[in-house]
């Protein structure tokens, strides 16, 4: 039965569009899993997602349950990653922290990718002064330090997780606009766009239905690769006390609280850091692997 | 024939494939004196790899194995990398296909030629070397060599680039020149002049030449002897004048596919590979 499904998926002459799409997805997943780093990345991202969804089932303790009698305990069987200065179980907090990290990453991606896509597509499709103005603005944002800009924005609009997401999003869209514009320029003058224009399609329809879908694979690669940077900036904001506010178990904020104890109770600050590193690496590996699979031009390059 | 300049026996080149290594050159043997040897074959026949294997310049993952490979009495298979380097350029050199890719884009033409000289002639002064470079550019019939020496490769034409390449390869006065498709990237109008130039310089210096090409006409015009390679094997070896008496079906097929002056054939024949496949 499996082999029948497999044959159906790998059929070189698919009979329906669904079969073709599923077959392509199957081939891509297979290629991704054959690349060891990409497979590890996929595993890490999947684990992050599952941890976030099933946090209450995985965490042995309440993330905010204080137990002052057991404060600053080193890692042990009862507390795998030890406890913090309020006696809270660090492992449980790291598990719940996955929810915050995943939420930030998803929100930033959902805000920035479409904005970047639309700005880039409009810029590339219309050209002329529209292009000049939009790309001028993009370039201004591109040539500025992301973290500093995000810091300044959060300082102005006030700390908090929503504001952190907004600030990161404001600084993260320009590269997507650049990519989308470059992609659009390569097909703007192609025959098939001319064909759609001849059919009388509106500019909006051409951009949305015919141009944007062609940018998706390079966008997916770039967004995945950028995730690590977004996680680091979010953690940095949390570390400075400008991101998620206590008692939320955000990893950067947890490191910040552990800072006072770093010389004696190293685990308080160290453990959430490992979570950040593993998740960021996961996105890097996955992004690299996706690039190898979706963009053969870059094969073998980092 | 006196002692041959180069002897190659049972040369094999393999690349790793999905199902184990794939042999691309499958036991080529030949020898050569101070003469002009042509190696012909279609793309993928292994002729270029043969040229590079002689210089031991095949990069991994390519793997070379050879029964015997001797150059002027020296065993090339056991030579240290350092001794091999001293041999490259100075005694054996190679002109490659396309000067657009084979010249370093960010070094001036003069510097690139001078480098070949510096490596093998450490005694000379900078002034002498420069003089030598200019003379060599003049020898490959470049007008205004002083100006050209200061140009970057993207500033010279294809034909001129190939002359520069020839100057660079011949300036240390090697004994053997391997020319790997030296004219196929050039404009038809300059092909003959570049080939004539190679031919003249080879004769003047009494060197050996291995001319690797897919062009039967070119090879029979400029060579004394011809090897025909197919699928990694030497299938035919004959004097250039005796090509029309070739016996191997592959060679006959190639010959038949060459258009003739004043002919009346409505179609040129296509190679019928069943005649020798599996040999």
């Amino acid at each position, binding site marked *: 039965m499996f082999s029948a499904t497999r044959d159906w998926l790998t059929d070189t002459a698919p009979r329906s569009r669904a079969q073709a799409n599923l077959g392509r997805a199957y081939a891509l997943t297979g290629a991704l899993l054959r690349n060891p780093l990409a497979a590890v990345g996929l595993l890490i991202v999947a684990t992050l997602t599952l941890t976030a969804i099933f946090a209450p089932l995985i965490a042995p303790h309440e993330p905010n349950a204080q137990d002052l009698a057991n404060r600053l305990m080193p890692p042990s069987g009862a507390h795998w990653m030890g406890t913090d200065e309020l006696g809270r179980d660090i492992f449980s907090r790291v598990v719940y922290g996955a929810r915050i990290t995943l939420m930030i990453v998803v929100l930033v991606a959902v805000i920035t990718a479409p904005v970047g896509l639309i700005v880039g597509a409009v810029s590339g499709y219309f050209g002329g002064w529209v292009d000049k103005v939009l790309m*001028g*603005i993009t*370039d*201004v944002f591109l*040539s*500025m*330090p992301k*973290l*500093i*800009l995000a*810091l*300044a924005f959060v*300082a*102005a609009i*006030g700390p908090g997780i929503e504001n952190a997401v907004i600030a990161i999003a404001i600084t993260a869209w320009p590269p997507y606009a650049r990519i989308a514009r470059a992609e659009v320029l390569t097909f703007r003058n192609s025959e098939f766009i001319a064909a759609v224009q001849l059919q009388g399609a509106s500019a909006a329809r051409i951009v949305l239905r015919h141009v944007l879908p062609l940018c998706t694979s390079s966008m997916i690669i770039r967004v995945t690769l950028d995730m*690590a*940077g977004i996680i*680091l900036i979010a*953690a940095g904001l949390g*570390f*400075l006390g*400008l991101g998620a506010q206590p008692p939320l178990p955000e990893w*950067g904020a947890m490191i910040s609280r552990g*800072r006072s104890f*770093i*010389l004696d109770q190293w685990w308080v*600050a*160290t453990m959430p*850091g490992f979570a*950040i*590193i593993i998740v*960021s*690496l996961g996105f*890097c*590996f996955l992004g*690299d692997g996706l690039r190898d699979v979706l963009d053969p031009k870059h094969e*073998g*390059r*980092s | 024939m006196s002692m041959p300049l180069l002897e190659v026996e049972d040369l094999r080149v393999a690349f790793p494939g999905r199902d184990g290594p794939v042999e691309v050159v499958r036991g080529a043997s030949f020898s050569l004196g101070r003469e002009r040897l042509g190696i012909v074959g279609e793309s993928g026949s292994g002729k270029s790899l043969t040229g*590079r294997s002689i*210089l031991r*310049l095949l990069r991994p993952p390519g793997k070379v194995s050879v029964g015997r490979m001797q150059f002027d009495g020296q065993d090339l298979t056991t030579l240290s990398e350092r001794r091999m*380097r001293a041999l*490259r*350029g100075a005694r054996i*050199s*190679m002109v*490659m296909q*396309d000067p657009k*890719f*084979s*010249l*370093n*884009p*960010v070094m001036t033409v003069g510097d690139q030629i001078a*480098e070949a000289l510096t490596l093998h002639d450490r005694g000379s002064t900078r002034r002498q070397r420069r003089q030598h470079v200019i003379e060599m550019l003049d020898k490959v019939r470049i007008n205004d060599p002083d100006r050209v020496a200061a140009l*970057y490769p*993207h500033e010279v034409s294809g034909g001129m680039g190939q002359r520069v390449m020839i100057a*660079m*390869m011949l300036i240390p006065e090697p004994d053997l020149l391997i020319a790997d498709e030296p004219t196929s990237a050039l404009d038809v109008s300059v092909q003959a002049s570049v080939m004539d130039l190679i031919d003249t310089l080879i004769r003047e210096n009494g060197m050996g030449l291995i001319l690797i090409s897919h062009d039967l006409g070119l090879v029979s015009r400029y060579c004394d002897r011809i090897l025909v390679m197919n699928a990694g094997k030497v299938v035919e070896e004959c004097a250039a004048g005796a090509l029309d008496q070739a016996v191997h079906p592959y060679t006959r097929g190639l010959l038949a596919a060459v258009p003739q002056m004043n002919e009346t054939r409505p179609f040129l024949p296509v190679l019928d590979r069943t005649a020798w496949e599996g040999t």
Partner: protein
Amino acid sequence: MSSDLQTSTRAARSSAPALRSGLGARLGEAVSMGVVIALTFLGLLAITFFIGRVMPIDPVVAVVGERASQETYDAVYEAMGLDKPLVVQFVTYVGSVLQGDLGMSTTTGQPVVEDLKRVVPATFELATIGIIIGVALGLPMGVLAAYTQGSWIDQVIRVIGLAGYAVPAFWLGLVGLAVFYAGLGWAAPPGRISIFYEGLVPTVTGVLLIDASLDGQWDVFWNALHHMVLPALILGFFSLAYISRMTRSLMLDQLGQEYLTTARVKGVSEWRVVWVHAFRPIRVPVITVIGLSYAGLLEGSVLIEMVFSWPGLGNYLTTALLSADMAAVLGATLVIGTVFIVINKASDVLYRILDARSR
């Protein structure tokens, strides 16, 4: 004879416009580059101005205090130009920034410009040592990884490069302190210099290592260096990661090139093939990468300086952030942003000047 003269003058005449147009093109390029830089800088000012407007803190209250009378409030409101249209306010803002007026810091009670003059050299010192480490190690690592593509050496260097994208700088700083200061006792405690040496050397450049050597105070020099090693190494690690990754990628494009075979045919040694023939064509992009990496270090120093109590720009910025000292925040943002723009644009210019092929 006369016709010869004619042709030569004609030749001279016809070559003159060619020369002029070459020069003109260069000049035009320089002018348009200047315009782009000016516009980008204006964009940066617009962003800081905008941030200054959206902040929920009332700038007038910040000056006059909570208990000021309505009259004082209104007077200051007008004096600060807040009653004027936004465009006018923006022009005034740009004008004062150009005159070097960035406002007063509410935390230090000094003009922001004075504060910046004091803290920038400390950051410059740290970032410069960091980039030296990053280039000295990252460049050879990138070249080696490309040369041994696919081998375990390549894999190790690639993972180190990726780690630079995945490890939070502040976390690495804390772990570094825990291990090398608290654990092994090799590194100095946080801070720029021991309290015993503070204020011993007169400030000339603000760069402590230079000031100490100018004054011949070598124990101060060594103490400062001892304090600098760990934070500089950590900054250097991030620069190394980025530089090695980019160099590897640039080098991989080169190593397959036919002209390297040409060099080998000539008898050039592998060392020279790699470092002269393959490296020379990527010199310009590598310099760009180093410039961008330096700009990145300024950014990274914000979090690193906080961890190491390093009295530089980053520490100044974070302190200002936490006390909502907006003039200081925007001043520091402006400085880092300006350095970013200058490095970004300078690398563009360098590309055009140095790249033989683009001419």
